[in-house]
């Protein structure tokens, strides 16, 4: 029933879409009260599904949680995939947002509109070549020419195509550069922030310095005169940093984590039971 072919398949598709649209059309006529109740009910059912999937004990043999003959574990996989797919369909919304902003910039000739043109150019070129490259694998049809998708194994390391040029040449380097800007920012942040304005700032600074020095040879040289296997070896700067990380950093992270976990748990329950009223959509549905 869930797998159909040929004419039946088309009929099922059309039927499903038509049915869904009809249902929505009927609901559209309903009162606010009905829509509101429906929304709350759906939120509840959505949460209930994963709640049960977690709390119903699984069969030790199959490791599947079964409720009234339904395998929740298997269903969870389908639900997970469906969530992923529905999320995937929203990507165009993101694209709309960008196109809206940059389209307006170009149309109204706002200052800097030429940069928006660059955005469109990059977006279009990359989209065309990325999809062209794999089009045949997905939908069949003629293969993309070699300069779009070079599949010669001899070039395996660096296919000589436009997509690779854009990806390896631009995207990867832009990514890496933006990431590496952190090196500069971590220096300027340290210079500005690590000043002994208060006791807390002093502690922050001293510990950060010890840890920094514990990582590089120059810092290790400071305490290298302490023998590495005597009773005092713990005072070597690298051992000291390790000790701070395991004996103080770890419990702090754990304690903060417990609080965060409970906070998230409470938040999850408030959303699930629609107790977060007015937070997201205040007045009416």
């Amino acid at each position, binding site marked *: 029933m869930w797998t159909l072919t040929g004419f039946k398949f088309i009929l099922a598709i059309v039927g499903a879409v038509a049915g869904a649209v009809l249902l929505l059309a009927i609901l559209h006529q309903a009162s606010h009260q009905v829509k509101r109740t429906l929304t709350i009910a759906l939120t509840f059912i959505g949460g209930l599904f994963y709640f049960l999937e977690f709390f119903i004990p699984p069969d030790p043999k199959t490791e599947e949680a079964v409720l009234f003959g339904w395998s929740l574990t298997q269903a969870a996989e389908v639900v997970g995939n469906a969530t992923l797919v529905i999320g995937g369909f929203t990507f165009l919304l993101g694209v709309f947002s960008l196109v809206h902003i940059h389209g307006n910039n170009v149309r109204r000739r706002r200052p800097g509109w030429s940069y928006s043109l660059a955005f469109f150019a990059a977006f279009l070129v990359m989209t065309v070549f990325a999809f062209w490259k794999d089009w045949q694998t997905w939908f069949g049809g003629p293969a993309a020419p070699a300069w779009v998708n070079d599949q010669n194994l001899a070039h395996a*390391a660096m296919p000589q195509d436009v997509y690779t040029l854009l990806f390896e040449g631009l995207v990867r380097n832009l990514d890496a550069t933006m990431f590496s800007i952190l090196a500069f920012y971590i220096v300027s942040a340290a210079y*500005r922030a*690590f000043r002994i304005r208060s006791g807390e700032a002093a502690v922050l*600074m001293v510990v950060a310095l010890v840890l920094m020095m514990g*990582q590089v040879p120059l810092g290790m040289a400071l305490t290298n005169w302490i023998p590495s296997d005597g009773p005092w070896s713990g005072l070597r700067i690298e051992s000291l940093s390790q000790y701070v990380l395991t004996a103080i950093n770890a419990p702090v992270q754990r304690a903060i984590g417990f609080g965060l976990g409970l906070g998230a748990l409470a938040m999850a329950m408030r959303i699930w039971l629609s107790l977060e009223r007015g937070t997201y959509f205040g007045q009416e549905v």
Partner: protein
Amino acid sequence: MRGQRRLPLEQIIGRIDRRLVYAGLFLITLAPLVGRWALPLYVTPPPKMLADTINALPQDKLVFISSNWDAGTQAENRPQMTVLVRHLIRRRLKFASISIGAPNAPQLANAAIEQAIQLEKVPWVYGQDWVNLGYKLATEPWLRSFVRQIPEAVKEDWKGTPVDQIPVMRGVQKFGPDGQASMLIDITGSATIDGWYRYLSPTGVKLGLGCTAVMAPEQYPFLDSGQLSGLLTGMKGAAEYEQIIGAQGFGTTAMAGQSFAHLYILILIILGNLSLVLGWLERRRRRR
């Protein structure tokens, strides 16, 4: 008069323009790289273990290098790769490089290997003494068959030459005690080592790892359990290894860069605090 002079000093060292700070960092990190400066290093146990393992390898077996890094982690992984290959060449161990992590890894691996050969000034011939097997998509079945029957999983090198025409690969069948491959060293910027733990550890073959500094803490348990026969942690690991085999290279100079940059930050922090103290003294002087 003196007060006027002191006030600007406090201001100057307390509010260095961030561009100057950035330019300083740029120069101070670049200088050791260009000038090939080196600072003495202290060798920690994990790289030493790796060197000892390689020193104990039998001469007649092949060493596999799983080279899984690309441009993103180049700074940490490339010096590891180069220094390990140099050690292998010094010990006259033949090796094969294979990539499962990134499609353009074979090219980077090749460049690193050729550089190592050049540095060692030994005629180490492609095909005779080493081979680059290119990029393979490492699905679970592929990993399994690679460990059991190497020729099944690897049919040709990265340029498309069939494996049976490559002398160094002749007779190489499998991993394990009765196999022809004695060790695999994973040099990686991603989670490729997990696959090797799963499939290679059970064969009893030695497994070495060179990874980025961020990944290293998670690997210590495997070092304890003996699944790893040695570990290089980022740039520092490469530098220590260079120290062990006595071959100064990029790792050592890069660590000099790291050291100078750290020192630079230290000086900046001291300057910032000095200005705070000076300002405080100044205010106290005025109040009197």
